[in-house]
């Protein structure tokens, strides 16, 4: 059973629909006590880094997720869920992310670029074929010098700057794009990441 972490933000329905479409049953989890019923976790996310970090802290989920990840159990962070794996974000300077990967999220330069970065873009993979088009919608990004010392694989994309589009290290995977909104290729990605 896949646990979809519900911290009161965003639209979980799309992700649940996508998981169902690739034959992966899921349930929502909002308290640490129910994590033991899950074999893998997805931390979705649309919204504000500070609000999400605060919600995860107050429900006790932040500590539970850190324990989960440190025990190398399968975990996927999507969009804000990827950013929350890092230590901090310029979006909410005082707030702490889960800090399982080192680094800080930065804003796109709104003086030169249309922000949010919204639309379809190619993801270039460190190993294997590129993802020809994935759907992004975000105003902050993870710089490519952030993250674990060793990636199993990593995908990058460019919008003014090169940024982290996806990456995997051990059982931990994150993607900045929305696989649940990236058409058939996005569903394949979800299946690849969550079935293994």
């Amino acid at each position, binding site marked *: 059973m896949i646990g979809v972490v519900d911290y009161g933000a965003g639209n979980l329905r799309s992700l649940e629909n996508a998981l169902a479409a690739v034959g992966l049953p899921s349930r929502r989890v909002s308290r640490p006590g129910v994590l033991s019923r899950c074999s893998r976790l997805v931390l979705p996310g649309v919204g504000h880094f500070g609000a999400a970090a605060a919600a995860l802290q107050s429900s006790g989920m932040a500590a539970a997720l850190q324990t989960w990840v440190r025990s190398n159990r399968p975990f996927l962070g999507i969009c804000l869920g990827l950013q929350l794996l890092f230590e901090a974000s310029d979006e909410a300077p005082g707030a702490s992310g889960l800090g399982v990967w080192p680094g800080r999220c930065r804003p796109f330069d709104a003086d030169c670029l249309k922000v949010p970065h919204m*639309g379809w873009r190619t993801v270039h993979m460190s190993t294997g074929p590129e993802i020809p088009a994935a759907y992004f919608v975000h105003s902050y990004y993870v710089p490519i010098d952030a993250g674990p010392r060793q990636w199993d694989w990593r995908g990058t994309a460019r919008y003014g700057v090169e940024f982290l589009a996806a990456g995997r290290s051990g059982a931990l995977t994150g993607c900045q794009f929305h696989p649940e*909104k990236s*058409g058939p290729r*996005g569903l394949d990605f979800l299946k690849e990441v969550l079935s293994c």
Partner: protein
Amino acid sequence: MLMKRIIPCLDVKDGRVVKGVRFQGLRDGGDPVELARRYYADGADELVFLDITAGLEGRRTVGELVAKTARTVFVPLTVGGGICSVADARRLLRSGCDKVAVNTAAVRRPELLSELADGFGRQCVVLAVDALRTETGYRVVVDAGRTVTELELTDWLRRGQALGVGEILLTVINADGRQEGYDLAGLRQAGAVCRVPVIASGGMGTAAHMVDAVAAGADALLAASVFHYGRYTVRSLKAELSRRGVEVRPC
């Protein structure tokens, strides 16, 4: 390059897809869920549902259509029409759409835009603007094309962005439904003041019209009739755009 998004629009009235010519003379174009699935399978990058039903009962129908569509369609879904409050938006977002488009209600009460942006994030909030080209410039029109306001287009676009919208959906009424091309001057004016993506809407008849709109600054291209009545499939349109040098998502 960010790929130019191709967005079929489904105008829904009483649970059926219709498309007006200059907002009048509606024709029946089919079952919305079935059409949405077809456009998705064909390579649509996003879908927009515009609910043109009057009254609360019909709006509930659109929520159900969206919920049904979202089960099998995995690209962003936007819903517009009759959204007047954070509660209206929340109901639709819960049913499975990703963005809400607001038009008349935002003109009447601009704070709605900041309430929506605060509640759901600006990436969820699309400001739909209907504009009328007049001798003295572009005026914002509300009430589904019936009421011309004193608001000047670029003033309203600046204000909307300041209030936190994440995207603009611009329809120039003079061009809408005529299939003679988007209103390029309106698009250029919008592009000059917009720091968020602009979706061109109203007037698409051929792929060349989309090429022109991209040159005028559009980030995404919305069309309805050409798809509903089969002049193009999304796939054939993208193939032609690609040949003409517009980068689109391969399908």
